[in-house]
């Protein structure tokens, strides 16, 4: 009997898989994914994504949520330790602190204009680069920030395999607090005008192209787990990022075209996980995207 029920379950699950695949096929994609409300601008959600798959059990969901929580120390959240190039050459690794930089500059300044890759070790920074005014050397030239030539030990810090370095002191008292991540609610800080990061290293700041009207509203997405919804705002992201930071490499530009966009893949650092695991607020702040959920601190 047990074997029989197992077989039944297999059949049902495979049927569900088949249905899901059918639903995902390109011809069906538009009916399947999108409902868009016309009319004038409003704060109302505009997109609904529909999944045909089954939802997971509560126990599995709790496991998944526990996996997604950041448990690191707030002093070190957002720090990246670069060993790839410096350690083989007999230097201490470079400890880069995102939070001291994002106070002054938006993400796009470094990750688009200065060509820093989002993948660690991909940029291949050399000393010649820095001395010639590229990468770190674009600002760390003695004029804007301390000089790469003299202040070596500001960045090359002794750090063992388990990241046992002393984090930089960072005065966050004036910034709005949050209970997870690096302890600072950066979005709120920018909204209140406590920080005003520059959006370009060039003297004349060119405003980025205005968003098309339908992207000015926040989007509401359904999830595979029908207990919650996701709200996403282009407007909040474009304050920090360039279109090209996300499109089309992380998210393609087809409306609701990123079909495999789900929590499992995000936890592997894809999609939202490209930033919201290591630098942007971590997933402890559930309610920032899933408005119905409580934060897990």
């Amino acid at each position, binding site marked *: 009997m*047990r*074997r029989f029920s*197992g077989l039944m*379950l*297999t059949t049902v*699950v*495979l049927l*569900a*898989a088949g249905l*899901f*695949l059918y639903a*995902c*096929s*390109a011809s069906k994609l538009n009916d399947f994914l999108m409902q868009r409300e016309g009319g004038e601008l409003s704060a109302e959600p505009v997109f609904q994504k529909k999944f045909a*798959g*089954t939802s*997971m*059990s509560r126990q*599995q969901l709790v496991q998944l949520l526990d996996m997604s929580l950041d448990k690191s120390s707030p002093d070190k959240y957002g720090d990246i330790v670069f060993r790839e190039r410096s350690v083989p050459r007999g230097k201490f690794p470079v400890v880069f602190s995102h939070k001291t930089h994002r106070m002054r500059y938006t993400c796009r300044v470094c*990750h*688009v*204009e200065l*060509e820093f*890759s*989002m993948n660690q070790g991909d940029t291949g920074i050399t000393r010649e680069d820095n001395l*010639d005014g*590229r990468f770190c050397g674009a600002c760390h030239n003695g004029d804007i920030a301390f000089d790469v030539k003299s202040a070596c030990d500001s960045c090359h810090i002794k750090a063992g395999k388990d990241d046992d370095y002393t984090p930089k002191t960072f005065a966050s008292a004036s910034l709005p607090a949050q209970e997870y991540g690096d302890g600072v609610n950066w979005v709120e800080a920018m909204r209140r005008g406590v920080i005003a990061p520059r959006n370009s290293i*060039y003297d004349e700041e*060119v405003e*980025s*192209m*205005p*968003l*098309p*009207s*339908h992207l*000015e509203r926040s989007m509401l997405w359904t999830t595979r787990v029908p207990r919650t919804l996701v709200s996403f705002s282009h407007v909040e992201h474009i304050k920090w990022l*360039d*279109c*090209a*930071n996300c*499109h*089309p*490499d992380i998210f*393609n*530009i*087809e409306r609701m*075209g*990123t*079909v*495999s966009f*789900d929590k*499992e*893949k995000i936890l592997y650092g*894809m999609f939202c996980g490209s930033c919201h695991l290591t630098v942007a607020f971590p997933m402890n702040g559930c309610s920032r995207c899933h408005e119905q959920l409580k934060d897990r601190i």
Partner: protein
Amino acid sequence: MNYPPKQFLFFTLFFISALSPTVFFSETALAVAKSHQYGDIEMSQPGQNKAVLPVIFRHSTHRDKYTCRLCHVDLEFAQVAGGTGVIEDDNRDGRYCGACHNGKHAFEITLCAKCHPKNQTERQELDRQGKEDFFKAKKTLPPARYGNKIDWIMAENTGKIKLQDALPGITMPQQDMVVNRRDEPRTPSLAGLPGIIFSHSKHVVWNGCGMCHPEPYALEAGKTKMTMKEIISGKYCGRCHGTVAFPINDCSLCHSKPVTLK
């Protein structure tokens, strides 16, 4: 019999996600390329000689001296890597690369290692040299925000670079035709997007007519319809803008008019 359905569910979820028709990564990298490598094309080799590595062709060291159409129309270079099928005999006989690389206009093609590195060490040395030369030249040219981070159009306008449009004795100079130099306004399909201006005069300096007409653009105004998705995947404007000319990240260079469709 122990038969945990939970594992089966995980397996099936994995199975579904592996098979589902996803677009994880787009075909062309729109986003962030290193400025000194922007416009570099790796050429596969149609010949039998596997003892050398593929050629990396650098657009950035050629486009400061010659127009696009000189190579892509007159010298018959295809706009797709591997589409031309250049072989050594061609070059030695003065076709393709050999039209200039003959010791008179540029270094001779018998200096093989200048383009064909034998091993990774030679490749790295060529890359290092190329990078050094690029950034040395970049300091003298007007800056831009994306791509090579060089404003090539401004550099040509202000006479910082002089473009040669014909090779005396090898190609014919362009016919003296009446050329359309108008700015063509276009309306984007999405509401709230700034209007588009296509400038014939900026293109015609580099491309003449034959690079774009009649393929991919029909001569009739407004007849060729395109979407941003097609452009990102390398069609229409994306044939050049995204690989060699300024990439389409620089939205406001084309979407430069006030919003027309509200």
